[in-house]
């Protein structure tokens, strides 16, 4: 939970408001795109955006607590620590590194010959996930690359990226 003071009041904001903020930003961008379209094209999305806004009001009601600075501290609504700026919503170190590994692997995967991209990408992701055993770091990537190549390209005839740029 985020806690800050404003005009003599202590305001607590729950973490669910972050996702709500992202969704509302998307709604704003969406509406900016459709405001010049015909009524038919705007009808259902407008109804949905209004619905999200109404649901958002209830989410805000459940996740915002305002109290006077002099009041006794109330328990956090989402059970999180009462300390300011607690980082429980942030990814743990492993997950954050793994996400970065995922970004790198996807970039490599779709921007080069897929099967070859798996070799460094898999090794990187295994290392970032915490694997340190050399047989796995050296053996698994080629095995995985071979399996994906045989299963997807040869057997199912599913195209894998091949020097494609996006």
């Amino acid at each position, binding site marked *: 939970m985020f806690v800050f003071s404003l005009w003599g009041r202590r305001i607590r904001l729950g973490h669910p408001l972050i996702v709500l903020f992202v969704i509302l930003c998307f709604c704003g961008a969406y509406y900016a795109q*459709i405001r010049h379209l015909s009524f038919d094209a705007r009808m259902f999305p407008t109804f949905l955006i209004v619905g999200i806004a109404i649901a958002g009001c209830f989410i805000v009601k459940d996740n915002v607590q305002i109290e006077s600075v002099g009041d006794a501290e109330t328990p956090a609504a989402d059970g999180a620590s009462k300390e300011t700026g607690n980082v429980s919503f942030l990814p743990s170190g492993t997950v954050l590194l793994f996400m970065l590994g995922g970004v790198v692997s996807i970039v490599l995967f779709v921007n080069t010959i897929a099967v070859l991209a798996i070799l460094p990408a898999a090794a990187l992701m295994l290392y970032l996930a915490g694997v340190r055993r050399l047989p796995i770091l050296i053996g698994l990537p080629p095995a995985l690359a071979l399996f994906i190549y045989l299963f997807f390209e040869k057997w199912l005839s599913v195209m894998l990226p091949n020097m494609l740029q996006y």
Partner: protein
Amino acid sequence: MEDTILLFINGIHAVMSFKMIGWMLLGTALGLLVGAIPGFTSSMATGLLLPMTFGMQSDVAMVFLISVYIAAIYGGSITAILLNTPGTPESSATSFDGYELTQKGKGCEAMGIAFCASAIGGLISYTVMFFVMKPMAMLALKFGPPEMFLIAVMGISVLAMLTTGSMAKTVAAGFFGLLLGTIGIVPTGEWRATFGSMFLAEGVQVVPAIIGFFAFSEIFDMVDRENVIRSSRNIVYSVRKIFSGMPMALRHPLLLLKSAVIGIFIGAIPAAGASVAAFVSYGEAKRTAKHPEQFGQGAVEGVVAPESANNASTGGALITTLALGVPGSSTCAVLLGAMMIQGLHPGPQLLRDQLPMVYTIIAAAVISQLIMVVMAVLLGYSFTFLLKVSTKVLAPALIFFCIAGAYAVRNAAFDVYLMFAFGILGWFMKRQGYSLPAVVLGIVLGSIADNELMRTYALYGSGTVTSFFTRPLSLIILAFMVLCLVHKITSDRRIRKLRATNRTQQGGV
């Protein structure tokens, strides 16, 4: 009636040859395997294997594809239960309780429950198909645009009303999913919210959304622990344990029957699909359960209901496909194409001129259910080794499968990036109590709901709202939604009273 039975016996006879059984086994094996891979839908599985049928006789080709279709849905439940990464959208609802059972060390039993429920649901569905194909097809045609819109919205509203978490968050998530589902080119020809991207002109693809929200968010969760199962107990996996789960499904005969009926009816409605059937069946099972609070914690009924419904919906979808020539699901659209390639003409003409072929297909579907159970048990057991592999090794491998699955949809890197974005968003949403199934269901249903609302408006103009109250079928659907809302309000009040009573008792002590 005697003619019908004779035709069915002839159909069984046509299927019971080494060649036909061989193709059914192959179709089942391939369908199971492809369906188990996150992101590969039953329609993709059927589409991918369609070229194999070009040189086949028409009856062999149809038997093979039907086996693939049904097996892919079975396969999706294996990874839904073991890894919380549904292999197919139809298996999304199965993961709610199936994965919780895996966490309790009962993954094998959960698979047994799922396979048995699927088989029973499928058998009921094809028995119904056998007797009432024509009348059901005519009833499905009575569903007009207002009813189709309500069916689409009903999926989200049922989820919202039956959630034990925050209803507001589920509604927000569901509407957000519906909004994502409306991106793309509108029937009026306008480009809606494509943000200048050619790839979004076709809309947000379902497969990257499913993989991103379900699979990726689960993979991120996995990385922080040593194994898929959080408990450190030594759990034994065996084929015997999978078979021991099957009688657990049979202890709920009424639920099996009710879920199968829901699956048949919703499957028969064109474009509604097995995903909707599974979610509605899950919601209905929870609504009428003695202990609804156990749903989401590993309730057996939470696996029985969606699995029975999603397999039963294949029969319903085939009814409209064969009898009317209108695909009951996206996979049936592929099957329709396959039939035309083979020189068959689905619709009333097929029932008039090629009735033996229709009953051969039904017979193949019935026998497939039995073959499916055995092969699914073997595949499910072989997948349990994944639970013993360290997540540090499993997660990268799963990511590459997910990338291949997302890329395979349109051979577009955009879908892979979209999958990753959904994965990160889904991971945060999950941690903050938002419903990921609601988002994914919304994306699946968004374009259907939007198109049907536009058609309703085109038909009724300013009378669009009243049309929902003046059509009998719409009224029935609305009544069901109101029933769910009343149930939600009364059960919330009951829970609040119980909590207040408990607090008073604890304070008194």
